[in-house]
């Protein structure tokens, strides 16, 4: 697994890297097995904690203030609410309010997303709660990214706190690579990857998305290729800050844009990105920007009901054809 390799390489590269979270130690190796084998390879540096997300996030903050580069695993992203005080009032405040005299180099890794029937409190995409918060980066690689490299960069090279969003459905997937893929580095360490379903010519539609929706979009692009619709899917790995120059550059290639995300609709990532794009592309849009997000309701446990609430390839395809008509 890419993420596991990234963690192992970070632990090897810098002895100040430590990993904390629930049930991380072997033989269990974490609820989603990302840390499997690491406690054996790096004794004493992969630490299983009690079930107190706020508490051990605070522990990581203290370790970061005293020279370590901790990685925190929060078992389900839904539990980030329990860490909110440490994120909002501690780790992101110290560097600024102490006038730059301290650093808090720390990564919180956590899986978000539905599609596995876990129900309302274990399926959410809550990253929008932390988007726009000063002093933190929110990063969410998709499976077209080298997620392990991005994780390594966040751990070893970024001196700011990073909220690193993983997606449950991407864990078993291999990284997707294709010749029609290009990468841009507006935000150092956190590349944006664009994937085309056409060789030459202009795109008919640009889809901007992130994280687990790459799992829906990669096969959708393939399907739309057979329908002879030119689509470019753009996946920033950095949600906050937004790599807006890159998104504007792609947006300017055609006047039809779809922004889709897995979290619920309303005050979300797509709202902010759409406003930034409207500001930059004023007059160059052929149609209003289409935004797709999960319905504003709880995520049902029953699989068929869950799919009604979440964004799927089918819903994205419908939105694209509607935009084309």
């Amino acid at each position, binding site marked *: 697994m890419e993420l596991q390799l990234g963690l192992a390489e970070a632990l090897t590269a810098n002895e100040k890297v430590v990993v904390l979270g629930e049930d991380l130690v072997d033989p269990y190796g974490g609820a989603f097995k990302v840390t499997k084998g690491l406690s054996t390879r790096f004794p004493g540096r992969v630490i299983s904690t009690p079930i107190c997300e706020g*508490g051990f996030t*605070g*522990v990581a903050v*203290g*370790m970061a203030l*005293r020279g370590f580069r901790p990685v925190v695993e929060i078992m389900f992203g839904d539990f980030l609410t329990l860490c909110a005080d*440490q994120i909002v009032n501690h780790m992101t405040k110290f560097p600024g309010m*102490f*006038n730059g*005299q301290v650093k808090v180099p720390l990564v919180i890794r956590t899986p978000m997303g539905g599609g596995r029937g876990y129900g309302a409190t274990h399926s959410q995409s809550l990253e929008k709660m932390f988007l726009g918060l000063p002093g933190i980066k929110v990063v969410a690689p998709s499976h077209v990214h080298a997620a392990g490299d991005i994780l390594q960069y966040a751990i070893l090279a970024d001196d700011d706190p990073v909220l690193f969003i993983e997606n449950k459905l991407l864990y078993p997937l291999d990284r997707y690579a294709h010749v029609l893929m290009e990468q841009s580095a507006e935000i150092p360490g956190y590349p944006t990857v664009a994937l085309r379903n056409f060789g030459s010519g202009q795109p008919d539609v640009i889809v901007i998305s992130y994280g687990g929706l790459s799992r829906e979009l990669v096969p959708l692009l393939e399907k739309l290729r057979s329908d002879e619709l030119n689509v470019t899917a753009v996946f920033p790995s950095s949600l906050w800050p937004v790599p807006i120059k890159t998104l504007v550059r792609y947006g300017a290639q055609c006047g039809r844009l779809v922004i889709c995300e897995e979290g619920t609709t309303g005050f979300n990532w797509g709202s902010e990105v759409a406003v930034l794009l409207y500001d930059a592309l004023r007059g160059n849009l052929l149609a209003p920007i289409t935004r797709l997000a999960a319905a504003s309701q709880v995520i049902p446990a029953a699989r068929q009901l869950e799919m009604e609430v979440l964004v799927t390839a089918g819903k994205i395809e419908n939105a694209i054809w509607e935009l084309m008509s």
Partner: protein
Amino acid sequence: MLTSVSNRQELLRNFFHEMFRIRVVEETLLNLFAHGAIGGTVHTCLGQEAVAVGVTSALNREMDIICSNHRGHGHFLAYCRDDRGLIAEILGQSAGVCGGIGGSQHLQKKNFYSNGILGGMAPVAVGMAYAEKLKGSGAVVVQFMGDGAMAEGAVYEALNMASLWGLPIMFAVENNQYAQSTHWSAQHSGALEQRSEAFGVPVSDIDGNDVEGVYDTARRLIREIRSQCAPRLLFMRTYRLGPHSKGDDLRDPQELDYHLQQEPLYRLRKNLDPSWVTDVERQVRQEVAMLVDDLRRS
């Protein structure tokens, strides 16, 4: 104690000097606030100076670490004696310890860190202790908190982890009896002072207005923590003489009168030469007044 009588007397004089300086700085800040020279809020530690000075004097200031709270001026001054940096910070000046950005509740200098979220620093302090243990530095972390913070869940997560992992940390609880306006008996059930025992963190329950006792106990606990790499909790009974912040005091004047006879400076004065005390008090008042004049002119 092995300390000789004359050394003890010298120690008490030093304690008095430091405690009185904290008292005067706090009174000066309240005065500046009343005159509109500072904004926001100030939480003073009037009456709790023995805690700050007694505990901090038991530390190795070069390597030990202090995590403090919203009522942290005394802890800060006892740690680094930088009254200029503190007052400038609260006056909002760039010469302040955090360039005026932090303000009263957010102070950082060397190994001193404070924050204004009650109980929030407890797990952070545990993390610092973990870091120092992994480094093998021998440093001890002191986490100051009040009876009010003892109602926050983060504190119990912190106690659990500190004990579970055997970390070099002393929880220094100042029971000043009031959480803002609420008496501690109206916000805590059971025996507040015994709670940490359930986590395997031994408690020393002492009179927090007796600076000598605070110092001696803190020294013993710090020695134990350093040698055994295990947490301790020092529970100090004291009393907040001042309001929570500024003019928000609705307590019975008779209650305050009683505590004026119990407060640490009043008690310590009785053990010192009155003419020495008069001289020191005059000198400190003068120094702080000059410092404030100097800062306000700049």
